[in-house]
């Protein structure tokens, strides 16, 4: 019997030892898990995509309306006591309080400035120390690229977290946080007693550390084993790490809301999600609401259950008062405030789907998808929110008007691109008639026949050789039949099916005549035209068919913009960049996509083409622009594909280049020419941009000369019935005088020396 007892005791001791051994192994395993996760990269952080910052300086083109548009997009608040993120605009005066921000070239401090507007520009910019040369407003967050599990967060540092938040959190969730070692027996007893008295669960006994462990390491199953693991891991976490580290991790980990597939984690993002403010800018009542959500973000969701959320918030405020964390007055004031949650959920996927799509495409060359979703990169783009929003409004209104006036029944589709041609930056992009629709991105993906948009490049190729071609060179606009490589005859027609005989190069381009353009392209050679297009940024090699000269070439609106940039940029091709910089989570620059000049054509020849393209907008196929936009010198070209399937206009002023495309997705005829469809939309958008006139004045290698419109010959007097003044590059003006001009006697060479100037 005793032996049996002894044997049983030994057996129990053995079992205990095994259990302890297994337990020790298990604890060791948990310990490794705790440390690996906490010391490694704790969270997968989405890449954040920013618009370009608004730069302010005296002389910057800006109106109070555009400033308001930008600031509202940034969710700046009007009026207020002058704290960061607030502004006022009264007439031509504005005051603005910006937030600090770190850019790729260094930090930009928060500023409080007064702005005075002049005529479409910033006339004066000063803060309390005096005038300010240059400053930036922090950029608008336009989207995020999420981890696949949908967790989204904005990391905060314990040092930058408002004291009120930490106080409220500890008062509500874990009063003895600073005293316990991970698990709080006193807290458990108190919670159990409170629950027993209430007859239901009113208090939780788990510490912040346990809550962190639960979220961070464990699944959400409810079991005793999990409870034990949670307690052991909490103790281990406290053993290895300081209270500050644990608290900071909690602040960033805790789940505080949900929007579709996107889970809102941490107080940094919650501040943006509920109030569209930074955490540091929140008031006591707002902090209390966020703290209240830690216990049950869905149950207390302030957007869905505002009353519940309000009661919860006030409960947190009461606790704060009991703990002496704020004065009775402060608490009373906070209690009396409404919830203050913005009704609109900030859309994480981005306000500008077409532009974000372009950003993703351009990132794909250099970054793995995984890195974009997890590394917390900051991506600085070229998007100009003011221009983007203006373009969207004008495009939408323009389409509505067109549909109404023209009675178009098919779903008219549209795409548009705005670039800064001198910098080669994409400022705005719309890929659908509904600019918010995140579907097929026509601005980038839809390649459509460009029609006459191609003509300026045919003429540029010719005019690059001034000894052979000038704007006054006569081209034959008579019937033409070409034999294509496969033997088929091709007989190009003009739009109006008329032939005009000899016409000047200028007239053929301004009025977009097809037949002389085909002849010209045949003379210089289609391969030459294709080479020119490639120099200017076309990244494909189209088959060198004669019809290329009439735009039997499919391009996306973005590709068209890239080509036209060279015309607006003195002949230098630039890329169309959507990204400036990529920074890592520590603000180090990973990539810079800088200003770059690519192939070039002589700017003298470009100037001739631009001059003709300006005439397109005053007397040619785009002449409505002349009266729709009378104050501005612009240049551009209409494009219409065969059977009126596509309606294009591509053009620019001194600051902005805009390409508009209209058509139908089913590729059926739309019934609109470039002039009838795209031009009115182009004009109204361009009129709404703070643009500036092209300067078509002096060029050191160009002389103006009056010529007879019919013969293209020199007209020194006013005897010829129709005369035009044209620019000539490198002494290429015609020397022979027109017959009509010779019909009258010239004024003698005395008095006026204007004649000498002409003849020089």
């Amino acid at each position: 019997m005793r032996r049996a007892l002894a044997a049983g005791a030994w057996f129990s001791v053995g079992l205990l030892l095994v259990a302890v051994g297994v337990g020790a192994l298990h604890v060791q395993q948990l310990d490794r898990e705790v440390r690996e996760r906490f010391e490694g990269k704790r969270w997968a952080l989405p890449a954040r995509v920013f618009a370009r910052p608004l730069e302010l300086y005296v002389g910057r083109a800006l109106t109070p309306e555009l400033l308001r548009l930008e600031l509202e997009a940034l969710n700046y608040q009007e009026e207020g006591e002058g704290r960061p993120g607030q502004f006022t605009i009264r007439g031509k005066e504005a005051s603005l309080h910006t937030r600090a921000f770190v850019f790729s070239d260094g930090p930009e401090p928060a500023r409080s400035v007064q702005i005075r507007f002049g005529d479409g520009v910033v006339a004066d910019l000063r803060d309390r120390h005096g005038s300010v040369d240059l400053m930036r407003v922090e950029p608008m967050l336009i989207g995020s690229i999420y981890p696949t599990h949908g967790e989204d967060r904005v990391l905060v540092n314990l040092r930058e977290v408002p004291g009120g938040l930490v106080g409220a959190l500890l008062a509500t969730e874990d009063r003895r946080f600073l005293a316990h070692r991970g698990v709080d027996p006193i807290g458990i007893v108190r919670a159990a007693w409170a629950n027993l008295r209430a007859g239901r669960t009113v208090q939780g006994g788990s510490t912040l550390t346990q809550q962190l462990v639960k979220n961070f390491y464990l699944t959400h199953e409810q079991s005793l084993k999990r409870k034990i693991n949670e307690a052991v891991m909490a103790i281990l976490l406290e053993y290895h790490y300081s209270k500050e580290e644990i608290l900071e991790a909690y602040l960033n980990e805790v789940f505080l809301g949900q929007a579709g597939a996107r889970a809102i984690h941490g107080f940094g993002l919650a501040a943006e999600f509920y109030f569209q403010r930074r955490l540091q800018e929140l008031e006591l009542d707002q902090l209390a609401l966020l703290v209240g959500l830690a216990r049950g973000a869905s149950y207390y969701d302030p957007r869905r259950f505002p009353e519940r959320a309000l009661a919860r918030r006030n409960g947190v405020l009461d606790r704060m008062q009991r703990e002496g964390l704020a004065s009775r007055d402060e608490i009373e004031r906070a209690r009396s405030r409404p919830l203050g949650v913005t009704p609109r959920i900030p859309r994480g996927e981005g306000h500008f789907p077409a532009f974000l799509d372009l950003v993703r495409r351009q990132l794909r060359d250099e970054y793995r998808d995984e890195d974009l979703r997890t590394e917390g990169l900051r991506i600085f783009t070229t998007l100009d929110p003011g221009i983007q929003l203006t373009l969207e409004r004008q495009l939408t209104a323009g389409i509505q008007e067109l549909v109404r006036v023209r009675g178009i029944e098919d779903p008219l589709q549209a795409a548009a691109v705005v670039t800064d041609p001198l910098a080669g930056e994409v400022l705005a992009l719309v890929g659908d008639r509904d600019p918010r629709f995140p579907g097929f991105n026509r601005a980038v993906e839809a390649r459509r026949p460009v029609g006459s948009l191609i003509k300026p490049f045919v003429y540029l190729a010719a005019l690059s050789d001034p000894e052979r071609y000038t704007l006054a060179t006569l081209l034959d606009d008579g019937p033409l039949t070409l034999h294509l490589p496969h033997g088929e005859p091709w007989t190009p027609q003009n739009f109006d099916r008329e032939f005009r005989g000899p016409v000047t190069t200028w007239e053929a381009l301004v009025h977009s005549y097809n037949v002389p353009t085909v002849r010209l392209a045949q003379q210089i050679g289609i391969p030459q035209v294709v080479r020119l297009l490639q120099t200017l940024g076309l990244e494909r090699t189209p088959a060198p068919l004669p019809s290329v000269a009439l735009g039997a070439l499919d391009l996306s609106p973005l590709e068209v913009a890239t080509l036209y940039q060279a015309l607006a940029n003195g002949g230098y091709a630039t890329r169309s960049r959507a990204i400036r910089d990529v920074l890592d989570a520590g603000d180090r620059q990973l990539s810079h996509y800088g200003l770059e000049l690519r192939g070039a054509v002589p700017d003298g020849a470009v100037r001739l083409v631009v001059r003709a393209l300006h005439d397109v907008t005053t007397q040619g196929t785009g002449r409505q622009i002349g009266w729709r936009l009378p104050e501005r010198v612009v240049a551009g070209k209409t494009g219409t594909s065969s059977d009126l399937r596509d309606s294009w206009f591509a053009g620019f002023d001194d600051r902005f280049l805009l390409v508009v495309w209209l058509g139908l997705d089913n590729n059926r005829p739309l019934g609109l020419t470039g002039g009838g469809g795209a031009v009115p939309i182009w004009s109204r958008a361009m009129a709404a941009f703070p643009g500036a006139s092209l300067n078509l004045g002096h060029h050191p290698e160009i002389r103006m000369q009056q010529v007879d419109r019919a013969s293209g010959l020199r007209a020194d007097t006013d005897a010829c019935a129709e005369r035009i003044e044209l620019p000539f590059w490198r002494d290429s003006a015609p020397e022979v005088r027109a017959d009509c001009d010779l019909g009258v006697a010239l004024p003698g060479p005395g008095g006026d020396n204007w004649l000498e100037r002409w003849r020089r």
Partner: protein
Amino acid sequence: MSRATIGLSAVTSRAGCLAAVLPAFALLAACAVPAPRPEAPAQTGAVVVVPEVPPSPREERPPAPAALPDPSHTATAALALAAQSDEAMAAGDLRLAGLQLERALRIAPRDAGLWSRLARVRLQQGAFQQAERMAQRSLQLGSADRGLALANWRIIAEARERMGDAEGARRALEEVQRLERALG
């Protein structure tokens, strides 16, 4: 994750001495460049040609009326950045110097002086082709400033030399010498 790297070339002594010449005052210089006639116009079959010589006037005449809309305004902000860029360059931070000039060029995109500065930064970064093109762009925009033209031709000459274009470098050096003689 891939990283875009910017190769830093050794700073040559010549590039160093350019610093003094490069003007923030590009627009002030008034006399025309006494340049020879440009090289023969582009031949047919080679339309894609950058003019070798800055657009050159054929006769002495007063400079063109100011093309920029109120240059004094944009200049303040852009020149403040140019000054910061100089500081960054003096401290050897070519990356920052480049960023500041790009920012300045977004403010004043037709400022020939800014283009020339950026050309110099690109030269020192070893981006020779960009250095050459930006210097050409500067010549295109600021044809009336001989000091600036000289700085640009020096950049072009060095960039071509570093790219192994000996003949191009020689032609650029001829321009340099011509301008040096003209400037005395």
